């Protein structure tokens, strides 16, 4: 998030697009609902499902999955046409406005034409654009509904475009606000858990950065960008990745095209899984290393608003399990590394030293309420919202983004669009949440299908049906509802007994390498 959670109080219009906020980020949803209820903000929700947040929205629109760029370009089309954009911001703080204009002002993005592309009525698009454009401060919240597309990068850039256009960056209550889906996904990225960057997003291809880390770690380092998770699976499948070390992840259920994943994992020579449980992935491992749980250790998580917060040891880990960092250190020492961390805080100190944005977030300073990065020095108070005064690169760069269709569209054989996501009661692949029986009783596998489609096929509520795509087939009970548009079905991906990712399309975004979980062609059939 460019902005902080508390800033929700300062916004006038909130747009949620591609986020089932009350299911996946309930507490942020509560903050947004508070703002709506107190009358400080008006809410726009754009989502193929009529999610709970739609009940609080002034305007709700259901777009056809995969049409986000068209929708966002159309909104900008109307905002520019009706002269509602922030000219001062555009002039002083951005560049390449011409490029944006050249794209979005195409007739293709007129409300009438985008109505055809997205299914959102032209009047509604105009209404949304007017409300958004006229707001003093507007913020956009999104999640995987924006990113998990072959056009995910385009989608994100379009969100940035509209926020620059309306001058909604660099101030409290505005912002481009991706809601991060896991407790420390922000921290994992910040810490260089990515194939192209060292901690603090210092590029592995940058000689200076390479030099800095080589010096710090006393080792020669590679300047070749590594493989992303989807590429690792592909390369394992192709026999190029021989060993895979998986710590606290479950690609068996979380990665697209499950059958392909299983084959790939089986093809590795050596699979190490480090986890609390024998996950579906661990079943396939050669070695399993028992790790302690979050409540059994110290350290920090960085949340979606870049706030670094302390984990304290609550209870003792089971005898035999070790903290992940201890295991890693043992392996490093075994590999010949001269590692000598005595406590977690020794690592924190190294992070402070090597990660500029974390420079001032020392063990001692974090305190009960944490600190928001960037926080470069020990006297810096932290940064609630980014881009105040100027962008990291100086001027904000507009880009003209052309609308592209998803990789796989419905056809005669697979007439429905399948989209996947989460439910409130469960988390990711269920490794943690499904161990609580009560949560299982509250929410089990299901496929959400519109009343219209269900009636057409004679499917009753709770009836178990088959869902098929070109990649595979699963069974799940039907949840027949008015809350989803005809032609679209939705399946949560938490359940190993009805694994949605057996069905999903592994086609990825060319830049971010994110698979297109939110759109693929599917069909459903009754079980006889």
């Amino acid at each position, binding site marked *: 998030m460019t902005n*902080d959670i508390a800033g929700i109080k300062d916004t006038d219009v909130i747009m949620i697009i591609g986020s089932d906020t009350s299911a996946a980020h*309930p*507490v*942020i949803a*509560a903050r947004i609902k*508070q703002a709506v209820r107190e009358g400080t903000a008006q809410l726009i929700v754009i989502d193929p499902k009529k999610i709970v947040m739609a009940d609080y929205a002034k305007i709700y629109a259901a777009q056809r999955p995969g049409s986000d760029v068209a929708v966002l370009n159309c909104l900008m089309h109307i905002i520019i046409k009706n002269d509602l954009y922030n000219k001062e911001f555009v002039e002083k703080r951005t560049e390449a406005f011409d490029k944006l204009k050249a794209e979005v002002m195409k007739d293709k993005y007129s409300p009438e034409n985008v109505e055809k592309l997205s299914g959102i009525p032209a009047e509604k698009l105009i209404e949304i654009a007017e409300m958004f454009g006229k707001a003093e401060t507007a913020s956009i919240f999104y999640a995987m509904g924006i990113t998990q597309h072959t056009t995910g990068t385009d989608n994100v850039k379009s969100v940035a475009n509209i926020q620059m256009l309306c001058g909604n960056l660099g101030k409290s209550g505005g912002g481009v606000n991706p809601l991060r889906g*896991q*407790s*420390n*996904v922000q921290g*994992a*990225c910040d*810490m260089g*858990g*990515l194939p192209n960057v060292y901690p603090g997003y210092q590029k*592995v291809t940058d000689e200076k950065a390479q030099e800095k880390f080589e010096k710090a770690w006393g080792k020669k380092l*590679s300047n070749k*960008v*590594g*493989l992303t998770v989807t590429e690792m699976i592909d390369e394992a499948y192709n026999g*190029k990745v*021989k*060993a*895979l070390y998986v*710590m606290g992840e479950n690609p068996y259920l979380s*990665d697209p095209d499950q059958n392909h994943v299983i084959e790939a994992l089986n093809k590795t*020579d*050596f699979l190490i899984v480090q986890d*609390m449980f024998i996950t579906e992935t661990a079943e396939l491992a*050669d*070695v*399993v290393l*028992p790790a302690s*749980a*979050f409540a059994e250790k*110290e*350290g*920090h998580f*960085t949340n*979606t608003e870049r706030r670094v*917060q*302390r984990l304290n040891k*609550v209870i*003792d880990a089971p005898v*035999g399990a070790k903290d*992940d*960092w201890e295991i890693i250190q043992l*392996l*490093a020492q*075994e590999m010949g*590394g001269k590692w000598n*961390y005595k406590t977690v805080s020794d*690592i924190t100190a190294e992070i402070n030293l090597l990660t500029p944005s974390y420079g001032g977030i020392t063990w001692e300073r974090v305190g*009960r309420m944490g600190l928001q990065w960037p926080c470069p020095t020990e006297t810096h108070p932290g940064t609630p919202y980014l881009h105040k005064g100027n962008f990291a690169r100086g001027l904000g760069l507009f880009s003209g983004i052309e609308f592209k269709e998803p990789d796989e569209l419905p056809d005669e054989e697979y007439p429905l669009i399948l989209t996947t996501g989460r439910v*409130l009661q469960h*988390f990711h692949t269920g490794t*943690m949440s499904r*161990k*609580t029986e009560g949560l299982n009783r509250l929410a089990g596998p299901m496929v959400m299908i519109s009343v219209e489609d269900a009636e057409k096929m004679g499917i009753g509520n709770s009836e178990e049906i088959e869902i098929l795509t070109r990649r595979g087939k699963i069974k799940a009970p039907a949840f027949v509802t008015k809350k989803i548009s005809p032609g679209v079905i939705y399946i949560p991906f938490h359940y190993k007994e009805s694994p949605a990712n057996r069905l999903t399309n592994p086609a990825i975004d060319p830049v971010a390498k994110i*698979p297109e979980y939110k759109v693929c062609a599917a069909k459903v059939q009754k079980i006889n």
Partner: protein
Amino acid sequence: MPIFINGREFELKPGETVLEVALRNDIYIPHLCFHPKTGKAGKCRACIVEVEGRRGLLTSCNLVAEEGMKVVTDSKQVKDAQKIIVDLILSSGHHDCLSCEQNGNCELQDAAYYLGIERPSFDLAPAEIETDNSSEFIFVDRSKCISCGRCVEGCTRTVVNEVLNFANRGFETRISFDNELPMGESTCVQCGECVQLCPVGAIIDSRMIGRGRTWELEKVETVCPYCGVGCKLEMHVDRQKNEIIRVTGVEDSPTNEGMLCVKGRYGFDFVSSQDRITTPLIKENGKFRAADWAEVIPYVGKKLKAIKKEFGSDAIAGLTSAKVTNEENFAFQKFMRSEIGTNNVDHCARL
């Protein structure tokens, strides 16, 4: 100029109420409906005080503190009236401290103790005890409800789920879920905000029942391991048993302001699950066998070294985790980069 409470001087912050000034300075005034989050309600009327120059008794929870104000919280008149008020509340339900989970953490108990009320004097308690155990994680005992309204306020204005409200009126007033449905059948999402706000034992975590007195549990703050919001939570721990008994949200956290979701509050069985792995495992002939650390580390090291030697560093890849700490992520990528010698490190940020 300061404010005077019981003759002592206190500084006041703009907008503060008399009750807030008093509580901030450890002067106890009985109060049952006020909560910093849900604010003044003026419902219980137990927080009455006297103010020099003002007529009658005033509720301190909605009395804005003014400079020079002279407040008395413990005069005979105040305490006599408080005694009747609290005694009536205590008499109006089945408040049985011996068996109550909130014993030791009950604001009604605190008020009664302060006023020297040993047992209820009035015959007001309902004939029957009315409980609702239809909800997976939350237990409701309406005969302990004092209609303070915090849960209603919290459900309506804080988490804005709008499931809880008052039904009926007068002495018959009671809390209701939707249109008087059993809690488990209502639209309640079991975020537990009502549990956290309840001053008595009327709405409690069903799973803490019988698992420890409040004073036996140690509280430790940490961060929720589920989604990326990073809610601060407080775990109530039985040290002897090494078990998490219950979880509450940290009220002064700027991230979640005390709120949690059903996973964050109730989804912790995995920590003490029987399925936890407690020893390293090595697969032999398609089956896992237990190993110890002294064996497994060299075993893994040997394998990795061999692959690195034969196929090069880039034949090894690692997935770090969005569910472990910054320090562990740092260590993992450092391991892959400096010890294995590859940038093949990623995690499921995108999935």
